[in-house]
């Protein structure tokens, strides 16, 4: 499995051994973020770092664990219950004059959110790359509720490709003729959807 190096800026003590051992110069960047496009995943930097500041992470996440539909349904229902408690606690916190009650209700709101999130991870929403997550975003873009940030949602789909749709994989391209950016499903006739420039004019992103 292809891996790449990432540096945890909070742990890095700037001892710079990673600079010496990297065969491609990927670790030598001004903003301290390892250049993923140069990293070949050799792992030398992670081994050399005296502060254990570098981790090797998978470059492409494997599909998430499959979840049983009954589990997912029950999780959504439980998360709904917890989110109602969260809303209720926030409201009580906002309306009360008592300092203790306000702190307690803020704590319960935070706690409820954490439980919902944890349950939802186990109910199919583990990876942003999963088709469950991606289908949800697609369906919200198709029929956006009031106030839904459609542009941000599209940007997410562009940045995070789906990793478990069978037979189909989206790839991002830029057209060198009209400079539009778009995604094409793997296997789809490759041509720019805007200016119809042929395949040779397309640059993979």
């Amino acid at each position, binding site marked *: 499995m292809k891996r790449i190096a990432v540096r945890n800026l909070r742990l890095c003590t700037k001892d710079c051994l990673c600079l010496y051992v990297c065969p491609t110069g990927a670790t030598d960047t001004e903003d301290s973020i390892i250049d993923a496009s140069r990293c070949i995943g050799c792992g030398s930097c992670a081994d050399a770092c005296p502060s254990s500041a570098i981790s090797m992470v998978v470059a492409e996440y494997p599909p998430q664990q499959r979840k049983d539909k009954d589990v997912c349904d029950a999780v959504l229902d439980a*998360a709904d219950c917890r989110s109602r408690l969260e809303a209720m606690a926030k409201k009580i916190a906002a309306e009360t004059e008592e300092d203790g009650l306000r702190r307690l209700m803020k704590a319960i709101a935070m706690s409820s959110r954490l439980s919902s999130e944890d349950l939802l991870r*186990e109910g199919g929403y583990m990876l942003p790359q999963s088709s469950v997550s991606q289908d949800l975003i697609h369906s919200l873009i198709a029929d956006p509720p009031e106030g839904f940030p459609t542009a941000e949602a599209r940007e997410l789909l562009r940045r995070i490709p789906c990793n478990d749709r069978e037979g189909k994989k989206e790839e991002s391209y830029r057209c060198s003729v009209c400079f539009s950016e778009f995604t094409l499903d793997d296997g789809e006739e490759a041509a720019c959807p805007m200016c119809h420039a042929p395949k040779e004019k397309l640059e993979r992103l």
Partner: protein
Amino acid sequence: MKYICQVCGYVYDEEAEGIPFSELPDDWACPMCRAPKNLFEAEEESDDGSAAIAEGPESFEKIPAGVLSAIFSNLARGAEKQYRSDEAGLFRKLSASFSAKAEGTESIEDASTLNSDFLERKLKAVRNAAKNASDRGALRAVTWAEKVARIVGSIIERYMKEGEDLLRYSDVWVCSICGFVYIGPEPTGICPVCKVPGWKFERIEGGDA
């Protein structure tokens, strides 16, 4: 007979302690996690809640706004873990565009009822489904959520009895990993539910809501 703390798993062994559990004072609390006496259960007792079944939405359109908000804040965490901080920011924007509406006037009693419903029906339904599917991860999440909801319920109850006195000179802390709520001085040990170190607890400030 042994009695087990349903929050942190501490075992009170009557034989070893020499005092029957029932004779402990009412304000006795778990020496590990301070859970009150009523959160202990006798060892054999177990209730699989097999009557509870799931009633979930069929498609995305039916997912309530509060849940969508939590799905996206969770995916923001997922992106963060993958060192994708820009994407995490985008997910947080999606999350913020949804919020559950609190209906009508809410009181602490309503919060207590809703918490019990979560424990007694909703989580049991997840537990049953997870058991049938042999889904260990989901069972783990249910166990954490259960312990956290129990402690939340017991703190709400104490507040209903003692009022502001309960919190006047005490801080309120939340484990930023599992949501365990703790009242008292800065936590030094590990979280009794998810076992992370004490510094992962966040102190809840009063001030503005």
